[in-house]
């Protein structure tokens, strides 16, 4: 095993040494404890011994050269296969420093502190004292228990002190206070006929954090569109049996994923992220479509990676796999990361339109409602249409209205006439 032996801090407070003489050469076999080199330091001229048996592979530094503590001296090929610790503890780099006992820390090349002076800082308590109440610890404890900010109470005791009486008197509430107090006291007393308490699960906490974060850091704007998907339904029906043969349950979602990916390729602002810290846009070159999945514990959003490289069937399989994993709580971190755009399908549960919340820091999210039979106009005639409602939320900081409309229109186009997807 190759081992680089650095110029050790030998506890004399050395920072550097000058090489006076090398006792070994490249290729030489050496033993632990054998002197490798003679170094001159600020305090002593001393030999540095090898910590290991082995062969010298490399020597660092020429005679007369200055070597800093911690810099390599030699590289040794040892017989060991295990790394052996050769230092005792992490210490700051030590320079020269006589001590006769102990290891001294030295200031090194750090800049010197500026000169001190006396009395330039005053305590200046006036500002603070103006807003603070004087009170004994007992009074403070009382106020705290009653959940009153003691600094709001006028003090009538000695030195303007807030006394127990002051606090008790303050506690006579006005009407609104009473209601607030009553509500709060209900919450606090935990009367079981009015309330039950449950601690927050990790998932719930995470969802809450993410939702709030998304809403606070983006400018949500939602567009609504309807797509007549009779053609899509026909295609799906056509390939249903072939899909089942391959053990694949074919829903509309894989088509929607495909359509979305194609649209993202044309409108890259929907597949991006705004990096305000560095004043730049980050455009994603991959199409990792996240699919929101409803589980008993809450919403999770696993990712279909590189959806542009997958076929409809492959996407269908990926969706099934991720949903199963989600419901069995077997999703890994890898399954969840690096999504670039999200789809959320609440139609199966029953919604029509919605204002979905963006999966921050993505730029957009497409909500899919339930397909309804509705009268539609085709070639100036009223027919029964199958209408799929779409709700697209975008981050208006990144995506202008024009692009958002064009994006969703393109998806509508693909879903109206799915054969377009194989043309692209």
């Amino acid at each position, binding site marked *: 095993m190759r081992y680089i032996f650095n110029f050790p801090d030998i506890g004399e407070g050395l920072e550097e040494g000058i090489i006076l003489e090398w006792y070994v050469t490249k290729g030489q076999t050496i033993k632990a404890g054998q002197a490798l080199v003679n170094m001159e330091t600020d305090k002593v001229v001393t030999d540095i011994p090898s910590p290991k048996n082995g062969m010298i592979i490399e020597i660092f530094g020429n005679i007369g050269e200055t070597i800093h503590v911690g810099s390599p001296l030699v590289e040794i090929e040892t017989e060991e296969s295990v790394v052996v610790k050769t*230092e005792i503890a992490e210490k700051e780099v030590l320079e020269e420093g006589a001590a006769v006992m102990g290891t001294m820390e030295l200031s090194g090349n750090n800049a010197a502190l500026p000169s001190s002076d006396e009395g330039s800082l005053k305590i200046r308590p006036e500002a603070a004292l103006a807003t603070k109440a004087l009170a004994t610890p007992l009074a403070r404890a009382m106020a705290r228990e009653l959940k009153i900010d003691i600094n709001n109470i006028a003090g009538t005791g000695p030195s303007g002190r807030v006394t127990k009486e002051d606090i008790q008197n303050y506690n006579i509430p006005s009407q609104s206070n009473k209601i607030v107090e009553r509500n709060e006291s209900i919450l606090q007393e935990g009367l079981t006929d009015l309330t039950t308490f449950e601690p927050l699960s990790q998932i719930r906490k995470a969802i809450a954090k993410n939702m709030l974060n998304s809403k606070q850091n983006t400018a949500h704007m939602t567009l609504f569109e309807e797509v007549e998907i009779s053609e899509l339904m026909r295609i799906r029906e056509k390939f249903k049996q072939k899909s089942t043969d391959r053990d694949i349950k074919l829903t509309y979602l894989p088509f929607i994923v495909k359509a979305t990916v194609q649209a993202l390729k044309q409108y890259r602002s929907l597949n991006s992220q705004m990096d305000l810290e560095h004043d730049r846009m980050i455009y994603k070159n991959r199409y990792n479509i996240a699919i929101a999945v409803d589980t008993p514990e809450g919403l999770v959003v696993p990712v279909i990676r590189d959806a542009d490289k997958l076929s409809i069937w492959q996407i269908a399989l990926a969706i099934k796999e991720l949903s199963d994993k989600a419901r069995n709580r077997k999703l890994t971190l890898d399954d969840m990361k690096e999504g670039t755009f999200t789809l959320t399908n609440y139609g199966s549960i029953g919604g029509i339109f919605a204002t979905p919340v963006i999966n921050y820091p993505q730029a957009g999210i497409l909500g899919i409602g339930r397909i309804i039979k509705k009268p539609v106009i085709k070639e100036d005639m009223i027919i029964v249409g199958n209408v799929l409602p779409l709700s697209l939320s975008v981050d208006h900081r990144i995506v202008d209205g024009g692009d958002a409309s064009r994006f969703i229109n393109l998806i509508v186009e693909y879903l109206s006439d799915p054969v377009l997807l194989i043309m692209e």
Partner: protein
Amino acid sequence: MIFKTFNPLEDKTLRIIDNDGKIINKELFPDLDNETVIKAYKSMLYARTADEMAISYQRQGRMYTYPPNMGQEAIHIASGLIMRENDWLVPAFRELGAMLAKGVSMKEIFIYYMGNEQGSNFKQANHVLPICVPIGSQFLHATGIGYSINYQKKDEVVFSFIGDGGTSEGDFSEALNFAGVWKVPVIYIIQNNQYAISVPVQNQTKSINLAVKAVAFGLPGIKVDGNDFFAMYVACKEAFEHARAGEGAVLIEALTYRKGAHTTSDDPTKYRTKEEEQEWDKTDPLIRMKRYIDNEGIWNEDEEKLIENYKQEIDKQFTEAENITPYQLEDVFEYMYDEMPDILRKQKAEYKQFQSWKEKRI
């Protein structure tokens, strides 16, 4: 008897072999068989090797500040040879060879100098006190143990060590004074290695030597060539017999030289010359004993190979020391009292709360 012949007031020094390993005092030459002499030499060699390796480990950044013993091995091994299982060793901090002789392991020494008090919890060695950092204070402890031995009528002797610098501390004088009054079975050995960090012994006291200080307290004192194994052995043996016979304490001044620095963080070039070091090198205890052994032709082992074996064995112990259970929070509190008071328990609990906060927060 030798205490009278080598009267410290006359500044006499007990020496048995010279720098070339030749016997210069046949009369006092001890009755030791060759095997024992060779074993003693090997122990000195082991101690010297361990010392050099310790300095090397410190230089590699694997151990903290360490006080080398180099040059003082004869004192340690000679006294160590005489110490029995139940005799006491009350060290200062430069008695590696004696501690090893008493059964302290290099592993324990390494654990200590790696910054863990666990190293002073000697698993095998009996009646050895931990090294004593407050200079000279250990002599009073030795005196107390001596009193206890007399009181309990035990057959035990105390060997305690101090440096030339330590003899200036009040505790040194107080300890010897009490030793005289109480007639304790204690051998007080001054390792006069010529330096207290940077201060030479000439500036430590204007007394003609250190052994003579015994006279003030009514104790026998003797100055010995500390780098002469045989002389040290003889002095310690007579002192041991003296103590064991109920005759009381003895002060031995062992002349030696601190070949290395005070600690690995000390630079002797700041206060002594290479010439001086080279002069004293001529009296090196290992060289002299080796010369004696060679002159007698009683040993033909491969010394190089022996040292190699020692190095491997010591390195193994060092590795074990590096791999002991790491220092726990419990260790900080556990040993303060026999029965831990509540306040300490509370402090430990509060710190644990901080630790959990830190894990989540930082």
